């Protein structure tokens, strides 16, 4: 399943999204959000992800909400990203908004 993307191209993130390069990824996303009112993140299903990246996206969502911008994922969480969400306790008691953001589930 995919969502309808706004006109601008998504930000394609690198294949490694772990603490090793998390500072660089933060700069990349922050810069992209500053230049796009709706920022779409393209995370490859094969991307290597750890908890620092999930925390980074949670933080970016907060920033988008505070600035009346939008942050979206180009595709539902899969691969490593889904695994980290599950192991990290993000899927239990997930709010409808969070489920829509991470998994592209329709809000009732």
């Amino acid at each position, binding site marked *: 399943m995919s969502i309808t993307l706004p006109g601008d191209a998504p930000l394609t993130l690198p294949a490694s999204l*772990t*603490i*090793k390069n*998390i*500072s660089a*990824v*933060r700069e990349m*996303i*922050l810069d992209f*959000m500053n230049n796009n009112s709706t920022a779409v993140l393209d995370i490859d299903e094969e991307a290597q992800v*750890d*908890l*620092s990246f999930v*925390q*980074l996206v*949670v*933080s*970016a969502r*907060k*920033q988008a909400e*505070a600035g009346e911008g939008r942050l979206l994922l180009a595709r539902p969480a899969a691969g490593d990203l889904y695994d*980290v969400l599950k*192991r*990290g*306790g*993000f899927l*239990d*008691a997930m*709010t409808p908004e*969070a489920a829509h953001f991470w998994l592209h589930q329709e809000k009732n």
Partner: protein
Amino acid sequence: MSNPDPISVFRTEAAELLEQIESGLLDLTRSLDDRDRIDAVFRGLHTLKGSGAMFGFDALAAFTHHCETAFDRVRKGDVPATHELVSAVLSAQDHMRALLETPNGDHDAMSATLLDNLHRAVNGGAGAPAPAVAAAAAVSAPAAQAAGGMREWRIRFSLPANAMANGTNPLGLLDEMRDLGECRIVADAAKVPVLAALDPRDIHLAWDVTLRSEKPRSDIEDVFIFVMDDMELEITEIAVEQPAPAPVEAPAAKPAEREAPAAQAVSDSKQAKSAENVRVPAERLDEMMDRVGELVIAQSRLTQLAGTAADLGLRSVSEEIERLSGELRDTMMVLRMMPVASLFSRFRRLVHDLSRETGKEIELVTEGESTEVDKTVIDRLADPLVHLVRNSIDHGLEKPEERIAAGKEPKGKVILSAHQTGGEVIITIKDDGRGINRERVRAKAEASGLIQPGAMLMDQELLQLIFQPGFSTAQTVTNLSGRGVGMDVVKKTVEALRGAIDITSKPGDGSEVSLRIPLTLAIIDGLLVRVGQGCYVIPLSAVEECLELSLEDDLRSRGRSFISLRDSLVPFLRLRELFRTGTEPDPHQKVVVISTGAERVGLVVDQIIGDHQTVIKSMSKLHHDVATFSGATILGDGSVALILDVTHLVAAGQHQEAQLRAAG
């Protein structure tokens, strides 16, 4: 602001971790059943493994895993801690350093050998089981410790901010919780800041876990054993009959405390310690020290200008800046100071290894470890001290049977101590061994042409011969010492630090080597004096007193060069003659009495100008070998003053005294 390279930070922290592990292992050799130390070593190995894997040091992580498994088995009581196991892990720990420094090197053969040793040590020499078997055995142990009966727990925790950066994987902790039983885990993102304010290497998430398990509380606490000290952890047991707490609806909501009254709530919460230390690269400190040095020179110039001007306002500002630059200098000095404990700690391992190699029983005693010295001094003293301690053990200490025959305890003692006196730190290496064999020293010196056969030497001169290049009295060359290289290098290194080295030895009772090292190498308080037309600086820490040398005393002392100072004769040197200034002596010459330890000598100068904050500059390569001077400094008027080498001058004065006494 640029972020530091994570790999570089990991290497630094891993090196510190390895030091802690080594220290823990060495402590363990004294009390093998010390539970706290076993846990500390285990935690260190676990953290190293975890962070190594996280930063891509896979070989290090895989190798460390085996040591961690071994210590896990010790921790759980499956196998005892033995000296063999500690030694095997110490050897393995050296290999971990190599894996850290050259992760892509060819380490397989060494890894296999060390792991074989490790498994032999774990299994009491009864053959090495496959690592997987050892790991499985380690994991199976706690299952038997179940307390019985299903219980329900509520666990809320947040990790120290730097946990991820330090190699802790929160997902691993959550997985361990799941292994304990039926688990519901909810992440709490309330404290995660917006992206612009986020340090992405820090962790701001917290977790709320509901666990149904038969396992006791200690098993839950064990999950957090490596981060327990700095985290916030609350474990609450909920009665089985009670319903599970309501799910956390939104990440922002802080879990309520309403079920607490019915529960036997015991909080293990620990306040996270605030980050009180900042890691600063040493070169930045050096750079800052240089700037402070330039400031001190500029301030000296300002003071001189203000002194000749009639402007009271300028004088006032000049005095204020002098005070402030003095305080800045003192603060800067303190920043560069490190306790010698960091230097001494490495000798515990050295002594441990040498004890095993030589078959000698050795006790290392360290004293005054909190004494602080400039970082550069600590760095440069490491190798000389290693050599001196090796020498004490190899040449000084006897084998147990020899000691018993001499009426001594079978265990030899090496005392490493440090203390501060004035502007110097004295580091002493003392042993209770056989002492230096003077006959052998003399024979060797004569044979190698260092002295003439039958030459009259004072005891101190004879002992100092061991610091001559190529000198060694060892009858057999060992890998510890006795290759004739080292003691001369030790002396040169100490002298390059503007220090001095003394040695005393009593046959049968042992030897003592003392290194006198200045506290700092950058800026010192000096006494500015004039000799002829030139200005010179005498380090103030060496100055005992100043006297006037009247014309009569000067004339009377010709040919003797001694002054009487409170009923004792002190030799003196006329710097005007030593430096061949070609000028007439000032009618009111002064004698500056300087000392190094017990030795004193007077320096005759034309004028004492006053105290002077002296920024030490190295001598040029051309003048590097001029022994009378240890450096130079720039004065307020831009001219250069040479800094006198006190140790050399005192030695010259004492030599002159000895010659005069010999001449009768």
